[in-house]
C-alpha cells in the first residue's frame, strides 16, 4: 500500500536503503548487507512504530536533502546531524511530522558517521529482492536498483494514516572525538598469530583507512604477524570478523562483507559493539580489547534493554 513518495533533492555522500539485512541466502553467495549500525536502525523503527525489519535510509557522513509528498512521521537516529525540517532544527532521535512539500535537510554533523531516517507506517517500500530491501552495493542488489541514491530518485513510502505520537529517545552513545574501543571475542584462527601480534592488537590504536567502505574497514597500524604462512580454506564470515591478510593489515568486516573468505581471523567484535563500529569513519582511531563470552552476553543484554524502553506501541 504505497501512498507517498520521498524525493531525493540532494543525495549526500552515500545514502542507501537498508533493512535488517538479506539473511538466509549466504549459501548462494548473497551477502547480508543491512545497517552498519543495527542499533540505531532498530531504534529509528521503534520510535515511529515500525516493525524492526522495516527499511530506513542509511545516511553517511554528508547528509541528503529530501522532500516528502505525503503526511507522515519521521525520525533520524545514529550520527548526530543538524536535521532541518523546513528550516527548523529537530534534535536527533526525536520524531517529527511532515506534510506534503516538507523538506528535510541534513546539515552539520557533530559526531558519528551514519544516521538512519525512518518513515512511519512501514518505512521505505522499494521492491524486496530475495525477501529484503537492503542495498548491497557491490552486487547491485536491493534498495533502489542496487545503488546509492542520486538526485531525482523517488522512493515509495508507506502511508501513516494515524499520526504517531511525538517521541524522543536516548540514542547510541557515539564515539567521542573519533575514538572507540571495540571488544573482541577470540577469532577462529587466533592461534595462528604470534603473542607479539596479539599484544600489538590490544595495546596500540589502529586508524581506519580511507580505503574503507560498507564491506569493511582497513585498519592502519603495526602489522599483525602470523606463526604460519598458509591461509585457511575459505569459510563463512561474521559481521565484525577481524581478518588479517598476509601483509598483516587487519580488515574489520562490516555490513556488506562477503559471505565467506580465506584469511585468518584473529577476533570478532561482539554484537553489542557493532553499532559503535558502524559509527566510525576513515581517520577515526580504534582500539581492541578481548573479553569473554559472559561479558559479551551482558553487554548485548544491556543494549537490548536500552532499546526495549522504546518498544511500547507508538500509536494509541
Amino acid at each position: 500500500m504505497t501512498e507517498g513518495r520521498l524525493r531525493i533533492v540532494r543525495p549526500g555522500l552515500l545514502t542507501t536503503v537498508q533493512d535488517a539485512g538479506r539473511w538466509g541466502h549466504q549459501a548462494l553467495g548473497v551477502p547480508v548487507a543491512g545497517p552498519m549500525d543495527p542499533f540505531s536502525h532498530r531504534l529509528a523503527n521503534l520510535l515511529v512504530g515500525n516493525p524492526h525489519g522495516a527499511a530506513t535510509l542509511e545516511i553517511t557522513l554528508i547528509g541528503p536533502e529530501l522532500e516528502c509528498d505525503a503526511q507522515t512521521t519521521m525520525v533520524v537516529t545514529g550520527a548526530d546531524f543538524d536535521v532541518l525540517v523546513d528550516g527548523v532544527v529537530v534534535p536527533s532521535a526525536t520524531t517529527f511530522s511532515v506534510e506534503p512539500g516538507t523538506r528535510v535537510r541534513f546539515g552539520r554533523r557533530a559526531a558519528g558517521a551514519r544516521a538512519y531516517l525512518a518513515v512511519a507506517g512501514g518505512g521505505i517500500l522499494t521492491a524486496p529482492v530475495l525477501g529484503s530491501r537492503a542495498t548491497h552495493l557491490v552486487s547491485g542488489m536491493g534498495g533502489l536498483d542496487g545503488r546509492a541514491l542520486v538526485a531525482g530518485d523517488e522512493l515509495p513510502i508507506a502511508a501513516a494514516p494515524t499520526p504517531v505520537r511525538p517521541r524522543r529517545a536516548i540514542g547510541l552513545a557515539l564515539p567521542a572525538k573519533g575514538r572507540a574501543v571495540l571488544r573482541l571475542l577470540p577469532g577462529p584462527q587466533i592461534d595462528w598469530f604470534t603473542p607479539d601480534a596479539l599484544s600489538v592488537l590490544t595495546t596500540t590504536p589502529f586508524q581506519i583507512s580511507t580505503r574503507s567502505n560498507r564491506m569493511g574497514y582497513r585498519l592502519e597500524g603495526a602489522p599483525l604477524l602470523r606463526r604460519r604462512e598458509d591461509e585457511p580454506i575459505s569459510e563463512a564470515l561474521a559481521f565484525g570478523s577481524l581478518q588479517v591478510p598476509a601483509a598483516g593489515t587487519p580488515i574489520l568486516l562490516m555490513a556488506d562483507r562477503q559471505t565467506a573468505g580465506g584469511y585468518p581471523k584473529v577476533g570478532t567484535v561482539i554484537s553489542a559493539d557493532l553499532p559503535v563500529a558502524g559509527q566510525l569513519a576513515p581517520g577515526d582511531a580504534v582500539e581492541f580489547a578481548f573479553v569473554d563470552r559472559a561479558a559479551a552476553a551482558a553487554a548485548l543484554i544491556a543494549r537490548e534493554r536500552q532499546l526495549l524502553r522504546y518498544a511500547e506501541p507508538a500509536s494509541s
Partner: protein
Amino acid sequence: MDVRPCGDAMILIELDPVVDAGVNAQAIAIADELRRTLGPGLRDVVPAYCSVGVHFDPLLTDHVALERAVADVVARLPRSEPATRRAPIEIPVRYGGADGPDLEAVAAWAGLTVAEVVARHTAREYRVYMLGFVPGFAYMGKVDASIAAPRHRAPRERVPAGSVGIAGEQTGVYPIETPGGWQLIGRTDLRMFDTARAEAALAKPGDTVRFVVAPGSAVS
C-alpha cells in the same frame, strides 16, 4: 569435527581441513539438516569447502544449545556421500578470442595447444564446492592439474559477466561484472544468478557442472 565460536552470533563447524568431495558433501548435508531442524534464532547456514557457518541471534539461542544441536545432527547423518541431487548442469562456453583473453596464456603455461586446453576443460565434470565472492559465484573443481594455471598477480579491474575462469585447480563463472584475477578462457551467455527466477542460482553447493563448447566459439 570441531565446533568453534566466531564471535557471539556465529559458530563454525570445521571438518577435516581439505578440499575433498566427501568432506564437502558432509558439510552440505550438515547445513541442509541444520536448516531443516533448527528453529527460532537461526539466521543463516553457510556451507563452504569443509566447514559450515551457523549465524544465529544471540538473544534467542547460544553456543551451548547450538553445539548440542550440531552434535545431534552429525550423529544421525549417514556417513556415506549422498547421491548427486541433480543432473549435471551444462554450461555452453565460447572459448578463446575476445571471450577468453587468457586462453593462449594458459596454453603457453601448460605447454599445450589452445584446443587441448579446451578439450581438458570440457572433459571433466566439476563439483560445485561452495558459492561466494559475489551472488551465484560457484567455486568448482578440480581442474586437470595440467591446465591449473595460477590466478593473475594483479586482478583485472573489470571481468565481464559470464566469463569462465581458471585459478589453480578451481574453475568458475563470473555471474556479474566485477574485478577479478582468474585466467579467463571463455564466456557463457547463461545467467548464473538471476533473482527473477524461482531458483536464483543456476549452480548450488553439491551440484555437478559440465562445460561444453558453444556455437560461435573461437576455439573448439
